[in-house]
């Protein structure tokens, strides 16, 4: 059974066996107009996309399965299937501009689920 929670492994640990959500923190301190957060858990999708996907990666599409099939039969693909976020969540950002402080919700800031596309 695949665990669908964020894998809290160290960045130096070996990469995941299949495409899955991994912990990744993004530092926003160089964006001076941002008051909060200074760092946030954006996460990332990492790991190989290989057949059979059905037992390995919960979110997959027929298009991906057919691309992987081509690749397995030795047909080179310009762009092989890739492990990417397929669901995101929002992040509140508190920023300071000449107009004052603003609290705003930004969509698609945090990777929540991964799939092969």
């Amino acid at each position, binding site marked *: 059974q695949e665990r669908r929670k964020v894998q809290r492994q160290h960045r130096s640990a070996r990469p995941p066996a299949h495409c899955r959500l991994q*912990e990744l923190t993004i530092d926003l301190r160089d964006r001076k*107009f941002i*008051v*909060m957060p200074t760092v946030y858990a954006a996460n990332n999708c990492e790991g190989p996309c290989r057949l059979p996907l059905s037992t390995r990666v919960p979110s997959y599409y027929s298009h991906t399965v057919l691309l992987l099939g081509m690749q397995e039969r030795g047909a080179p693909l310009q762009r092989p299937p890739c492990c990417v976020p397929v669901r995101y969540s929002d992040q*509140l950002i508190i920023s*300071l501009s000449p107009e*004052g*402080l*603003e*609290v705003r919700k930004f969509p698609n800031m945090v990777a929540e689920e991964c799939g092969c596309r």
Partner: protein
Amino acid sequence: GPRNLSCVSYKHPSVRGRLGGAGGAVAGAVRCPPGQCCIGIWNRSHALVQGCWGGGGAACPSPTCTPSPAGPPGGAVLVCLCHGHLCNGNTTATG
């Protein structure tokens, strides 16, 4: 992290937008979703925003509010994160 913390909730009229769970521009208290911290943001003279903050890896190790500078240099904005009951209401660093 702390569970269902209560935080002071406030928004100065100059501030656009709102924190999750924060009320209007009146002082009060708010109960946060599990895992969130209290946050307080001040400028030189007054509070700008107080309420709940975080989830998803945000950390607030301190039980009390110790504001530190944040945002653009010269912006004179101070921020604290804390996990004590209504901890974002009191700070010794601002008037």
